[in-house]
């Protein structure tokens, strides 16, 4: 409403109208003949004042005029962007705008022609950002993947199946949200698949025991040296601060990571939904004290329904072993 009011005041159509009237009324009013220049200047000032007052007086009416216009079928307003139209029939849904955006990108990069002007494209992009669409925030690989999917459906693929699958796996490894698929069955092989993702929380928590040990060691050293380290920590500012954050803490972190790495090597914790009941199950890959967890595949039993599953860390897929019923 505030912007509309501001707009109506500055709208050139209304300003002359409100100017005209006061000028006439004021110029008609000075009936007293006066020759003194001082008096005239006062008149001049009062004229200006009345114009201002009239302007303020007229502005509410101007805005009601504006509202009357909006209530009609057509809104003619240069300040309204094409995508902000209030007309429900013309407004495109978010999905359609996303599709249009990708089509424009695809046409530009792969076909070398533009299906919309730069201005239209910028408007569309701005509108998508405003709506909180994830498409405009995608990485280059993600955009390429979406374009490839669309191109495939429309019948003129832009990359081979192998390239497509590689790109998909790469995005999956990067934990991209757009390639997330639920548990599914392949139509051709009738096998059941489910996606695995990295459990970063558990990967972080695996460092906790080592961190506790490192902290214990740190305070043990402190005790051995007759609280020399505590003395360093309590040095006057800024030395105490520097020692705590740039020497003591990095040392403890480094110690805990080293301890973890000597015990477990190349570890990876993957979790994924069971294809039968959807329960998340996690599995550990790596070596614990030089004992390997068994290469790139793990056999996991669902904690909820007891289904046998095979976790593959190289393809990031859960499959059901041969011969089992989905």
């Amino acid at each position: 409403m505030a912007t509309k009011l501001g707009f109506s005041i500055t709208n050139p159509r209304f300003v002359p109208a409100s100017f005209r009237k006061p000028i006439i009324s004021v110029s008609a009013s000075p009936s007293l003949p006066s020759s003194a220049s001082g008096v005239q200047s006062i008149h001049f000032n009062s004229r200006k004042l009345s114009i201002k007052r009239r302007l303020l007086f007229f502005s509410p009416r101007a805005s009601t005029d504006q509202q009357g216009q909006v209530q009609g079928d057509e809104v003619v307003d240069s300040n309204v962007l094409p995508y902000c139209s209030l007309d429900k029939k013309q407004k495109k849904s978010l999905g359609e705008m996303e599709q249009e955006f990708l089509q424009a990108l695809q046409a530009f990069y792969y076909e070398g022609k533009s299906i919309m002007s730069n201005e239209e494209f910028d408007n569309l992009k701005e509108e998508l950002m405003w709506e909180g669409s994830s498409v405009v925030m995608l990485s280059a690989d993600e955009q390429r993947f979406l374009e490839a999917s669309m191109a495939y459906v429309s019948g003129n693929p832009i990359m081979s199946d192998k390239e497509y699958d590689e790109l998909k796996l790469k995005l999956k490894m990067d934990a991209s949200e757009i390639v997330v698929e639920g548990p599914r069955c392949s139509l051709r092989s009738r096998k059941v698949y489910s996606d695995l993702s990295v459990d970063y929380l558990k990967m972080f928590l695996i460092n906790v025991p080592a961190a506790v040990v490192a902290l214990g060691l740190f305070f043990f050293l402190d005790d051995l040296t007759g609280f020399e380290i505590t003395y360093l920590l309590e040095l006057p500012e800024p030395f105490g601060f520097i020692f705590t954050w740039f020497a003591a803490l990095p040392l403890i972190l480094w110690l805990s990571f080293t301890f973890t790495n000597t015990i477990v090597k190349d570890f990876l914790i993957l979790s994924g939904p069971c294809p039968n009941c959807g329960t998340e199950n996690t599995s550990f890959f790596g070596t614990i004290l030089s004992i390997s967890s068994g290469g790139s595949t793990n056999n996991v039993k669902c904690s909820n329904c007891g289904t046998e599953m095979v976790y593959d860390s190289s393809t990031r897929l859960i499959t059901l072993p041969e011969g089992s019923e989905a």
Partner: protein
Amino acid sequence: MIFAGVTEATWDSLVLESSSPVLVEFWAPWCGPCRMIHPLKDKLAKQYAGKLNCYKVNTDESPSIATKYGIRSIPTVMIFKNGEKKDAIVGAVPESTLTTSIEKFL
């Protein structure tokens, strides 16, 4: 029944020529994950009744539709609007993923 089946014979009239957006689920009786999301689909069909037409396609009975739209895995949920395929969601995904995709096209 809200969740009616579509076959090759009724595909054009029910899905492509529908005036409102259409949600189609491709499924097969032998697929475990399909069974997992069936109750979810029924719930969505009730929730969006009147705004969205919901159908399901048995890929065993109508394999040509699945081939035509390049479906490699089931369950696949597709959203059609004005006879055009707008979105496809593969796999038994959580309800929130489905509702966000549906909301985009309503």
